[in-house]
């Protein structure tokens, strides 16, 4: 049997990598990709806990399903926004999208 | 005072609130209706206030007319009797209720002159009055704070919309400083709630709580400065002259007359009654602040040329006496402090009423310009001189009774301070008499030959206030009989 830590560590590292990507990348699309990585890490955690610690209810698995669904919705919406920004500004570089300031 | 009188206490703040609602439903073009409603309402408040004062039995329990309606309990942080609409008065509150009743009635009368949006003015004014009454009679900490804020917030609009001379600046400054003070009060209030640990805001539990001395020493200044800002405590008085100068007549009357007392009342209720040891620890500081304010306000007033600014500094000076009296920690000084709250309230309300009555016509408050007004407005001048004499502590008027107690209390505690306090009374006389000589007497400035005597409503209002001044000055027993037992009974740490 594979120890639970293996999965959890994998999820943690995956999450951290995605985290880095969100912060470091400049293209909005790549940030979205990094977000997908983080979501995947979280989903792995959910499923791991469902499998190892919740043999009858496996609620974690249900949540993983929701995560996948919401991620899909999010990507769809976010891409819409990105396209919109691109049309307005001819760029998807988030450093140049700074209309939130004073 | 019986249990059923608790409903009278409820009525004290429900009447103005109800009047406010009624006014909202009244079309603002119906000026006569607005005048009728407010006239009746103010009379009702006056009568209720006198009733509460008269019915308070000075041989009875400490808090009388106690009535509690539970609002929330056993929810979240709250346990049994968590939040109640609990009312009740002690001797101090009874005096303050009377003061409010006496000031609001003339305040209403003189406001009938307002042409611009009179109805809205009255709605805000009555909400403010409801807040004042609520604060005086409330025995639940959270509701106390609610009404305290309710009394402050309408002030901003009242000054900013209906004021004069730099009204936006005055209103903003006043509001900012008072809200900053409220933040301190709120902090201390929840610190006490946390420290008490019974999950209740019932004040009587706090009076009996005996908080840890260190806790008291830390949080007493929060209350003292927070409430003291409203009370015009030096050096947090900055809003007072500007705010008073900017406010419309009735608001100045209520504010200087009653709201500043709310600050001192807060120090007594939340400060000394709940944290007596903290109060005792900080009392010398209160004395220093009080005597400094008394001297400082009086000396500043010597150089003011605007009548309202002078009165504003005079208020700072007189409220200094209040803090001085509280700091003496003996019954005579405390008695004096509370009498001074009452006396100053009446007298300064009279001042502002009269200044307003004159300013409405002349649009000039510069003392050097106002020469010989007594020829044009003799009745006005007589009232003004009476107010001034009360202010300078002439025996036979309210100010003297209060100041005498404070002087004696101060002499019991610190003779030198007492001497300075008496000296301040002489400085007060100097600036007031200089003002009389310059503004009322001497040859008439031809600019004012068109001025008319103040209106009948103003005369009636002034007469009510003068009556109160003379009554307290000549026969102080009804006041002292209510205040002194309350202090002895309920303020721990105050000695004979």
């Amino acid at each position, binding site marked *: 049997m594979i120890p639970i830590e293996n999965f959890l560590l994998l999820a943690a590292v995956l999450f951290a990598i995605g985290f880095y990507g969100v912060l*470091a990348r400049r293209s909005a699309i790549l940030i979205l990709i990094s977000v997908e990585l983080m979501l995947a890490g979280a989903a792995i955690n959910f499923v791991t806990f469902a499998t190892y610690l919740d043999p009858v209810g496996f609620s974690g698995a249900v949540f993983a399903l929701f995560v996948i669904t919401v991620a899909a919705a999010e990507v769809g919406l976010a891409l819409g926004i990105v396209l919109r920004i691109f049309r307005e500004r001819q760029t998807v570089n988030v450093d140049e999208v700074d209309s939130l300031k004073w | 005072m019986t249990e059923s009188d608790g409903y009278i206490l409820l009525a004290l703040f429900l009447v103005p609130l109800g009047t406010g609602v009624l006014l909202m439903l009244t079309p603002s073009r119906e000026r006569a209706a607005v005048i009728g409603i407010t006239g009746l309402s103010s009379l009702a408040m006056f009568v209720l206030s006198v009733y509460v004062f008269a019915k308070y039995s000075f041989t009875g329990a400490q808090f009388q007319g106690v009535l509690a309606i539970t609002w929330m309990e056993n929810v979240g942080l709250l346990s049994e009797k968590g939040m109640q609409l609990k009312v009740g008065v002690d001797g101090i509150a009874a005096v303050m209720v009377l003061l409010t009743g006496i000031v609001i009635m003339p305040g209403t009368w003189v406001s009938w002159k307002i042409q611009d949006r009179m109805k809205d003015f009255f709605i805000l004014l009555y909400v403010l009055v409801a807040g004042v009454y609520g604060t005086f009679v409330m025995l639940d900490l959270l509701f106390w704070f609610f009404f305290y804020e309710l009394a402050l917030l309408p002030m901003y609009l009242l000054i900013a919309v209906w004021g004069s001379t730099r009204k936006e600046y005055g209103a903003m400054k006043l509001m900012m400083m008072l809200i900053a003070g409220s933040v301190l009060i709120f902090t201390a209030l929840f610190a006490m709630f946390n420290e008490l640990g019974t999950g209740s805001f019932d004040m009587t539990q706090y009076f009996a709580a005996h908080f840890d001395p260190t806790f008291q020493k830390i949080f007493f200044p929060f209350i003292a400065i927070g409430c003291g800002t409203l009370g015009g405590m030096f050096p947090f008085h900055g809003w007072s002259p500007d705010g008073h100068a900017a406010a419309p007549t009735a608001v100045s009357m209520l504010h200087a007359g009653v709201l500043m007392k709310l600050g001192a009342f807060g120090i007594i209720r939340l400060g000394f009654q709940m944290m007596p040891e903290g109060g005792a620890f900080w009392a010398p500081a209160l004395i220093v602040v009080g005597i400094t304010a008394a001297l400082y306000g009086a000396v500043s007033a010597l150089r003011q040329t605007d009548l309202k600014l002078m009165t504003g500094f005079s208020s700072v000076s007189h409220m200094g006496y209040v803090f001085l009296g509280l700091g003496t920690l003996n019954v005579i000084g405390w008695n004096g402090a509370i009498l001074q709250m009452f006396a100053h309230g009446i007298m300064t309300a009279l001042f502002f009423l009269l200044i307003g009555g004159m300013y409405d016509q002349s649009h000039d408050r510069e003392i050097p310009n106002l020469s010989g007004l007594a020829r044009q407005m003799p009745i006005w001048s007589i009232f003004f001189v009476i107010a001034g004499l009360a202010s300078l502590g002439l025996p036979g008027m309210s100010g003297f009774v209060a100041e005498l107690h404070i002087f004696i209390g101060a002499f019991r505690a610190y003779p030198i301070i007492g001497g300075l306090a008496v000296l301040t009374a002489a400085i007060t006389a100097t600036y007031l008499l200089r003002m009389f000589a310059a503004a009322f007497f001497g040859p008439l400035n031809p600019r004012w030959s068109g001025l008319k005597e103040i209106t009948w409503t103003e005369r009636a209002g002034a007469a009510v206030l003068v009556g109160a001044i003379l009554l307290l000055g000549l026969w102080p027993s009804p006041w002292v009989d209510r205040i002194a037992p309350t202090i002895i009974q309920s303020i721990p740490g105050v000695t004979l």
Partner: protein
Amino acid sequence: MFDRLPLPSQFDRIIVQGGIAATLFGVPVLVVLLALLIGNRIEAPELVFWLDATVVLLGALGAVFLRNLVHAALALIATLIGVAGIFLLLANEFLALVQILVYGGGVVILLIFGLMLTNAQDDPVVTDGSQKPFAFGIAAILGGLFVAAVIDANWGAQTLSVVPFRDFGARLFRDFLVPVILVAVLLDIALTGAFVNARRSSDEDAMVPTGQDAEARS
């Protein structure tokens, strides 16, 4: 639009380069794992896990470090498929299936379309932001914390239980019915929102100045 798609020759290059990279990284890992398996240090499922983990992590690293957008998107595919493998290892076939379908079939395609639609100039040089060092530090700290937390914790008794399709479905649509409906609504709203956002609105066309306004401006 289609002229922006990678040409077959480019696909070749990607495949060749990716294959070389996979070989360079994968072969030593495979060798080590096989050695461990043979030496009875690990069991067979663990071997599969480690292989899969390697794919997932390499894909993830590729996704966040590769400069070329398209390459990054392709690396993401590797990761997502690897995650599906992990789900299989966790005895949840259904989720693995959904992962492949939704991600592989939907999300990634969407992302690549997004890339194509937005990458106006055909420049692959999308450098990282100025706060890269901070990002690295923060990510390292957070990852380290997670790792430490996982290692530090005591997970108690563990059972590996297979999730039957039937039970999973029953649980999902019986106990989680309301959330499922809510998610469905969410999806609906999100798609509508995406459509509304991405659409070239008629308002913008109407914004073109006409009549007197235009004269006044000119």
